[in-house]
């Protein structure tokens, strides 16, 4: 018989709550991007409205984690599990905030015709979302290899960000009336870049969870 079956069950539940929160955040990012691409203001507003559900989940995860610390006096890997759950939940919450920011940019741009068809930005979103999925998979399966693979993609997203910003700024002289739209799109690139950074942070936390060592994958 396991001596800490109840505690183990609670740790599993904590992880399941985080997984639910992560999938909601992932969905929010996708919906925000779709609202931007299709200029669907209603959808964008829904993303903004539903962010409170994700915040609520973060609070629940925090409460459960603190209760487990108070009740179970966790040490060693148990303590790291709870510590990392707290940190990952805060990274995931920040990702959801980025989804809200993208949706707000969609609202700001409104129905104004895009200066060109959006191709690179959706590509960048795909990369960032890949990283989100990988970081969460790495967390769920406590897999360092996947965590490292996820972090390796961050450089690529950073480069895309640099290139897109240059390109967008280049449009301003020819499209002075679309400056607001161009700035909003530049913001969106920045938000996607931040989402990739949050994924990298999750990957770092996974490595800490498994090995107890802290490493900087962004370096």
């Amino acid at each position: 018989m396991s001596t800490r079956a109840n505690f183990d069950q609670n740790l599993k539940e904590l992880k399941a709550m985080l997984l639910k929160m992560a999938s909601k955040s992932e969905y929010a990012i996708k919906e925000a991007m779709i609202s931007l691409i299709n200029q669907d203001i209603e959808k964008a507003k829904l993303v903004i409205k539903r962010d409170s559900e994700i915040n609520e989940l973060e609070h629940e995860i925090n409460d459960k984690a603190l209760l487990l610390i108070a009740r179970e006096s966790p040490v060693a890997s148990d303590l790291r599990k709870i510590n990392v759950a707290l940190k990952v939940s805060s990274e995931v919450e920040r990702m959801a905030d980025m989804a809200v920011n993208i949706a707000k940019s969609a609202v700001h741009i409104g129905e104004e015709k895009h200066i060109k068809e959006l191709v690179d930005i959706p590509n960048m979103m795909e990369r960032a979302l890949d990283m989100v999925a990988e970081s969460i998979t790495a967390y769920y399966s406590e897999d360092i290899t996947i965590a490292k693979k996820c972090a390796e993609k961050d450089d690529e997203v950073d480069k895309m960000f640099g290139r897109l910003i240059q390109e967008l700024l280049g449009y301003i002289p020819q499209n002075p009336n679309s400056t607001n739209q161009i700035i909003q799109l530049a913001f969106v690139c920045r938000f996607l870049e931040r989402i990739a950074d949050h994924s990298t942070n999750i990957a770092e936390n996974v490595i800490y969870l498994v090995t107890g060592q802290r490493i900087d994958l962004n370096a």
Partner: protein
Amino acid sequence: MSIATLTREVFHIQDLNLWYGEHHALKNINFPINKKEVTAIIGPSGCGKSTFIKTLNLMINMVPNVKMTGEINFNGQNVLNEKIDLVDLRKHVGMVFQKGNPFPQSIYDNIAYGPRIHGIKRKKDLDEIVTKSLMDVALWDEVKDRLHAPALGLSGGQQQRLCIARALATKPDVLLMDEPTSALDPISTLKIEELILELKEKYTIVIVTHNMQQASRVSDKTAFFLMGELIELDSTSTIFSNPKDSRTEGYITGRFG
């Protein structure tokens, strides 16, 4: 010159083996104990932790059929090989047990007992030792008006602090504590823990405890024993955050033992 005199070590245990008759109770223990540090010893019942602590002042010799090999170097002297004056060894290495065990005498006489054995007779000197020892364990204010009352009239927590004061009265270098709070309520336990943290300014402390949180709160080093073996000895922060051996991890997280 031995290793101990060159380092911060007060004890240096090397290849220590101990048998109770046929039972091999301690296996190849190598264990340095540093001056003015608190070393906690943890492990499941029967792992050898109490046996180990009792070797340090040779209290273990009171158990019949005990055989030991290896070295227990105390301040550079191997107490297993050389002719050791046990009274003198135990003056330097004091011990406190699970339950306060005051002598059926007054509070004063309990503390004065050790110094008297070691030849201190003058009342003024004894008064000074009694006062200082009781102050050291933060018991002075509670008992200063009834020093000649029976020690057995004190509460459990006070009795335990009295026993610590009694051990301190002979001015030891090392204080061994074998589950010193397992019979105490939580507040008395915390008082003893606070006391341990104060005492380590002056003394080297080795504590056996079943209370994992206690080990993590009071000690600098933690040693994990299992079936007579020293599995892991490291800084307490490492043991409780990222132990190297999976058996240590299993024990401290409550997954076995």
